[in-house]
Structures are given as structure tokens and as C-alpha cells.
């Protein structure tokens, strides 16, 4: 009984999981960007190297969000 239930179980769960992901995805893209940018700006004001740390923070935020996103999407598409 478990075998026949698990495939549609996974598909239903992944649809619901994808729906919940869609609600937060906007925030997950926006909030780390602002957070890392702000940390970069604060480190800039401490070490006085003008824009480099803020740019590094933004780049870190964009890369890690993209990697996380591609992993999540790969799981859902494989199912």
C-alpha cells in the first residue's frame, strides 16, 4: 500500500511545497541581498575601503541565493 501511495504522495507534496515556496521566494531573493549589502556597507564604514565590501556582500548574496534556488528547483523538477 505504501508503494502505490508514495508517487502521487510525492507529487502532491511537491505541488504544495512549491506553492509555499512561491510565496516566500520573493522575500528569499530580496532579503539576503539587503542583509549582505548592509553588512558590506557597515564593514566599509569600519575599514574605509569605499565600495568594495558592499559589492562583495551583494555578490555573495546573489550567488548563494541562485545556488540554493537551482538546487530546490532541481529537486522539484526531478520528481
Amino acid at each position: 500500500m505504501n508503494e502505490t501511495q508514495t508517487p502521487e504522495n510525492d507529487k502532491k507534496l511537491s505541488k504544495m511545497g512549491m506553492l509555499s515556496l512561491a510565496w516566500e521566494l520573493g522575500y528569499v531573493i530580496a532579503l539576503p541581498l539587503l542583509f549582505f549589502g548592509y553588512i558590506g556597507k557597515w564593514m566599509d564604514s569600519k575599514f574605509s575601503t569605499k565600495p568594495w565590501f558592499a559589492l562583495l556582500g551583494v555578490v555573495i548574496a546573489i550567488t548563494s541565493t541562485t545556488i540554493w534556488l537551482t538546487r530546490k528547483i532541481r529537486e522539484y523538477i526531478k520528481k
Partner: protein
Amino acid sequence: MIYALPPLVAEPILHIGNFTVTNAYINSSLAVVVFFVLGLILRKRTSLVPTGIQNFAESVMEGVLGYVDQVTHNRKKSLQFFPIVGGLFFFILFSNWVGLMPGTGSIGRWLMVHGEKELVPLFRPANSDLNMTLAMAVFAVVGSHIFGIIAIGFFKYFNKFIKLWDVVVSLKKGGVSIMVACIEFAVGLIEIFSEIAKMVSLSLRLFGNIFAGEVLLTVLAGLIAYGVPLPFMFLELIVGIIQATVFSMLTLVYLTVATTPIHSHADSH
């Protein structure tokens, strides 16, 4: 202005000792008292053949339990999650609909606010206060984590997020995998951000909808008092039930996803 435009923060009405009672707090206590009395009444009237209020309550509960079953596919889990999810749904629904009754937003005391004498309403929809929705969102997300730890076990649950074991294994290999470990660490940080994003999105969605509806109804009732607010009140009815459904459904999904053991992730690499 003869009507009171609700500000972002709920206004304090009276002070009991050191505790400030705001007008959104009065509404939420009203909802709590109503549900408490309803619970007491239902507890006394248990009979095998239900009539009257017990019949109504049982039919409503069966309907909601059926919807919860569609997400969890497991009756035992549905019965465990049903108090939280059903409680959130009925509380939010009741608070939203009571906020439409005549008297909320209009009956008030004349207090001195920022140096001018203004009408401070006594009642205000409970979810139009960001504290309330933030508390419920934090409760839902932290509750899902706690349920996950209870159901699966601490280290297996923690491994879902930070993937500590993979990081340790790749550190032993040395060389390039130090960079990989840094990337893994950043991705784990994004997972933590995903939890924060859940809380922020849950609370801001409910707060924004109900607060905007309250301000809209107040301004419309101030402009033209008869007839024109009617379609907007109908809209607020629909918005109330949709927001309650979305909040409780998302809580249910977080709970379900947190308590399912991951057995299918390992074979996707």
C-alpha cells in the same frame, strides 16, 4: 476629521497597572472569550446523536479535517495537526469578520493624541496590528520546527538544513573542497533566511490585507456613508476568508514538510 483614520500602530485605550490595552487587543480578547465559551458549551452537550450546536460544530470540523487530510495524506498526522491549523483558521476568520460589524472603528473615546483631541476607536480588527500577525507567524514557523524535531529527531532534522555531515566530509578531502565548503555554508545561511522569509511573508500578508481593508472602509464611510461602502464590505468578507485559508494552509504545509523524513533526496544525486 470626524472619523478616525487608523494609524499603523494600534492605539492604547486604557492602562491596567503597567499593561497597555490597545484596541486590537480588545478584539482579540473578545475572540478568545467567544471561543472559550463555545468550547465549554460543546463540552457539556456530548451525545451520540448530535443536535443543534453540536451538529453544526461536528459538520464544520469534518469538513476542515477533510481538507487537512488532502495535504497530509495521513489521518493520524491530520488529527495531530488539526488543533493548531483549525485553531488558526477559525481564530483568524472570526477576528476578520467581527472587524466588519458596526461599531468597530466608529465607537470610541475622545483622547488626546499628539496634542489634539481625536476619536480613538474602541474596537479594531485584531489582525490589523502587526504584533498579532507577527506573533502568529512566529508561532507557526517555530512550531513547525519543534514538531519536526519531535517527529524525526534532532540531528536528522538539523541535517536537512545545514548539511553539516557533507561539509565535514568535504573538508577532509582538502584542497578545492574548502571553497565548496564555503559555498555550502552560504547556502545553509540562505536556508536560515528562508525561515525568516516565511515569518515575514506570513505576517506581512495578513497584516497588509486586513489593515488596508480597515483603512479603505474608514475612508469610504467618511466620504459617502450610505450605499457606496457596500461592495467594499463584501470584498472584505471574501478577503477575510481567503486570508484565513491561506494562513492556515501555509502553516499546514510547513508542518507537513517539516515532519516528513527525507528519504528521496539521497537518490537524486
